[in-house]
């Protein structure tokens, strides 16, 4: 409902602009017949009624959607079309509502809901009032006496009026003079012929939907005035001067005993009598040329105000709901589709997509177009008869080669992936199929407090790998997360033959762990099959050929991973890399006699991918570090420490060696929270800021390390 309300408000604001324009035009079109004015008001009415709009380059509307925002989008956003206003207000909103929380912003939703309710209340009140008044009048004229045709006389009226929507009837007071009667009747008849008995109530209905907009009240009042003047003109068109004088007299006579007249009944002595008399007496039939000009103005007016400005949104600076595509990797030879290279993607809210249809050939002509905007692409989709709809959400990913890919989601959930070369030209276009939602715990592993663990611990950690039947053998499915990081899944070879890789989203033991798990089975080595598979979570690029399969098998059974000649002190393992960095940063700072011990909790890691080559890679880890100074001699005593959220980026070379590239921590004190929001992924910021999520585990781990230290002393 708040949605409809916002839509109405936006429509109202658009209409407000038009009313201003009409006011201006009325001044310019003074010499034109008054029915032209009514047409202009009709255009305003149309604008209020049309839920959709055409876009045209003629549009003069500053902005079709001033207040944008579905209730479930992160942050409200103003786009009035006036830059200074937009920037100031949006800066304020940015400071008040934080981005990235994909749950709905309760505060903003509530405010709009309250306003929507108030709005509804206003409408109900106005409509109630209108309906009641109408019926009371209707009852009062029950005893009206028929004069002729559809003209009645009754004592309920002071001023003549027209009442009725289906069969309009004219009501005259008994007290009207013989001379005036016919003139009054011709005015009211003119109203009927112009269908004013329909326009006025319709206008009132529209007004009640937009009761909060003062411009529209002004517009309605002026509409009523213009209607009366137009009717006067219609009557006196062919009158002689004397007849005009008689008509003016009738106007005056009927005004003498006036009361305030309603919106529905079309009255005779209503609008400023003086002005009307003046208008009648000075009326001259307008020249044809003036009428033609006036009509032209109306047409132009319609084109200008009934259409919306074309929305220009450059694709790569999109203002849609955006997200990040965390993982994206390419697999060759997928049997389901006939594409040579299938892309798997996972967005930060856990949606998994797989590329399904390629449309690159439909966009071949566009390979030289730079800086395409969303509307350009949408147009192309329409031209090529690709059923796309309009973009509602956009995900971005950039790989190390500088290729930017934009994943555009339409309102039906279909996603298209468009990749661009660094100069902005289109490289490829794929339609993606949504496979499902994955467990985001895997995307954000809960903990890498690193021990391989005992068999019991492994049983707790991977219950699904134990007590499997060994009939027919066991298969170890293994996939690669990074150059030296493999994950394994265990299943019975016969009963669980996986055709897809859906299991890979949910779990994975390390090689060491898996070998320990295998040791719990009474099975020969030759009955264990090791099979390399693809994994949607890994952005590690590799090709599943025979060579690779052999390599993986060999690697799995080796006692220790092969080490190539490496520089001294080089690190092959992410965990070791992180610990090395922490040791460097903190151990030296421990005061005399104390030992600083660090442990960390990993929220997420992010690999910039797809990697363009098999070997070079970059990984960013988002962790929180618990560093504590201990006094350790006979017993362990905590002295002083803290939790430090940290973001580290490592480069990994072809030998699998990690080198620190970037290290960021938030400032202490008042800038802490804003820094965290800046350096961490938006979707995990709230985990990071809430110590309860990790403090227990980290403190425990730290104490464990401290006790190990004590043992080894």
């Amino acid at each position, binding site marked *: 409902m708040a949605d409809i309300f916002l839509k109405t408000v936006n429509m109202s604001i658009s209409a407000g602009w038009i009313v201003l324009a009409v006011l201006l035009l009325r001044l310019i079109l003074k010499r034109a017949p008054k029915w032209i004015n009514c047409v202009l008001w009709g255009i305003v009415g149309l604008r209020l009624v049309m839920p959709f709009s055409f876009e045209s380059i003629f549009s003069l509307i500053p902005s079709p959607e001033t207040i944008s925002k579905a209730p479930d989008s992160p942050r409200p956003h103003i786009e009035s079309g006036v830059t200074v206003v937009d920037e100031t207000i949006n800066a304020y909103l940015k400071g008040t509502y934080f981005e990235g929380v994909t749950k709905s912003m309760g505060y903003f939703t509530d405010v709009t809901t309250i306003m929507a309710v108030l709005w509804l209340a206003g409408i109900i009140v106005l409509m109630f009032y209108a309906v009641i*008044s109408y019926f009371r009048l209707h009852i009062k004229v029950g*005893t009206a006496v028929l004069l002729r045709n559809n003209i009645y006389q009754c004592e309920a009226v002071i001023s003549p009026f027209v009442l009725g929507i289906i069969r309009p009837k004219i009501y005259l007071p008994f007290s009207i003079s013989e001379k005036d009667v016919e003139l009054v009747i011709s005015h009211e008849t003119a109203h009927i012929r112009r269908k004013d008995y329909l326009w006025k109530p319709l206008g009132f209905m529209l007004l009640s939907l937009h009761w909060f907009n003062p411009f529209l009240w002004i517009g309605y009042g002026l509409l009523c005035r213009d209607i009366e003047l137009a009717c006067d003109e219609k009557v006196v068109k062919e009158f002689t001067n004397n007849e005009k004088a008689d008509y003016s007299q009738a106007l*005056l006579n009927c005004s003498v005993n006036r009361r305030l007249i309603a919106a529905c009944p079309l009255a005779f002595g209503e609008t400023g009598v003086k002005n009307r008399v003046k208008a009648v007496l000075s009326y001259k039939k307008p020249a044809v040329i003036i009428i033609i000009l006036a009509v032209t103005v109306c047409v132009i007016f319609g084109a200008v105000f009934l259409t919306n400005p074309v929305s220009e949104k450059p694709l790569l600076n999109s203002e849609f709901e955006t997200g990040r595509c965390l993982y994206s990797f390419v697999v060759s030879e997928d049997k389901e589709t006939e594409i040579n290279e299938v892309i798997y993607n996972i967005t930060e809210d856990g949606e998994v997509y797989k590329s399904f249809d390629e449309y690159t050939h439909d966009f071949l002509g566009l390979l030289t177009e730079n800086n395409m905007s969303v509307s350009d692409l949408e147009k192309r989709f329409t031209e090529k008869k690709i059923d796309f709809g309009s973009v509602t959400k956009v995900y971005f990913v950039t790989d190390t080669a500088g290729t930017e890919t934009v994943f555009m989601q339409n309102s039906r959930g279909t996603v298209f992936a468009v990749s661009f070369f660094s100069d902005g030209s289109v490289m490829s276009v794929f339609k993606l199929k949504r496979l499902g939602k994955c467990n985001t715990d895997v995307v954000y592993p809960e903990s890498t407090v690193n021990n391989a663990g005992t068999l019991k611990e492994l049983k707790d950690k991977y219950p699904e790998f134990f007590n499997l039947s060994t009939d027919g053998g066991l298969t170890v499915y293994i996939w690669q997360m990074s150059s030296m990081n493999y994950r394994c899944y265990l299943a019975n070879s016969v009963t669980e033959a996986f055709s897809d890789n859906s299991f890979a989203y949910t779990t994975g033991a390390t090689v060491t762990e898996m070998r320990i798990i295998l040791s719990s089975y009474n099975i020969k080595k030759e009955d264990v099959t090791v099979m390399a598979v693809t994994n949607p979570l890994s952005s590690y690029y590799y090709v599943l050929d025979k060579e690779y399969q052999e390599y993986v098998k060999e690697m799995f059974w080796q006692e220790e991973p092969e080490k190539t000649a490496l520089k001294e002190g080089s690190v092959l393992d992410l965990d070791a890399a992180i610990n090395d960095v922490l040791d460097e940063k903190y151990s030296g700072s421990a005061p005399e006699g104390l030992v600083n011990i660090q442990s960390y909790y990993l929220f997420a890691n992010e690999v910039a991918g797809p990697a363009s080559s098999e070997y070079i890679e970059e990984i960013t880890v988002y962790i929180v570090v618990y560093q504590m100074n201990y006094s350790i001699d006979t017993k362990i005593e905590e002295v002083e420490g803290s939790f430090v959220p940290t973001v580290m980026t490592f480069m990994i070379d072809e030998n699998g060696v990690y080198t620190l590239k970037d290290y960021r921590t938030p400032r202490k004190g008042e800038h802490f929270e804003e820094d965290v929001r800046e350096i961490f992924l938006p979707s995990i910021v709230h985990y990071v800021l809430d110590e309860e999520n990790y403090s227990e585990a980290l403190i425990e781990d730290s104490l464990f390390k401290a006790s190990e230290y004590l043992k080894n002393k």
Partner: protein
Amino acid sequence: MEIPKIFESEYRFCLILWEHEPVKSIELVKLCKEQLGWKPTTTYTVIKRLSERNVLKNENTVVTSLVSKDAVQAAEINEMVEKTFEGSIPAFVAAFTKHKKLSSEEIDAVQQMIDRYRKGEQ
């Protein structure tokens, strides 16, 4: 005896009654439909109202008047109209039709405008 007050529309009804009385109410309904354009329910309501005010009596569906035509004072009618219906006309949107009653100056001014026009002065 005080003459009961009758509204203009009721007066028109009475004219029909005086012409045709004594008359069956059903017949009266038909006549009112023809001459006044009234629905049957309206006619019955008016008959009831007027009988309560002792303007007519309705016995065994036959209606006869209790007041004669001459006795009714037409002059009172306008007065009643003013008093009864004062301010009862609905005002949905009073906003920009800024009419209050015309002041006598305004009335004069406009009248002058019209008069001068007739005389050929613009």
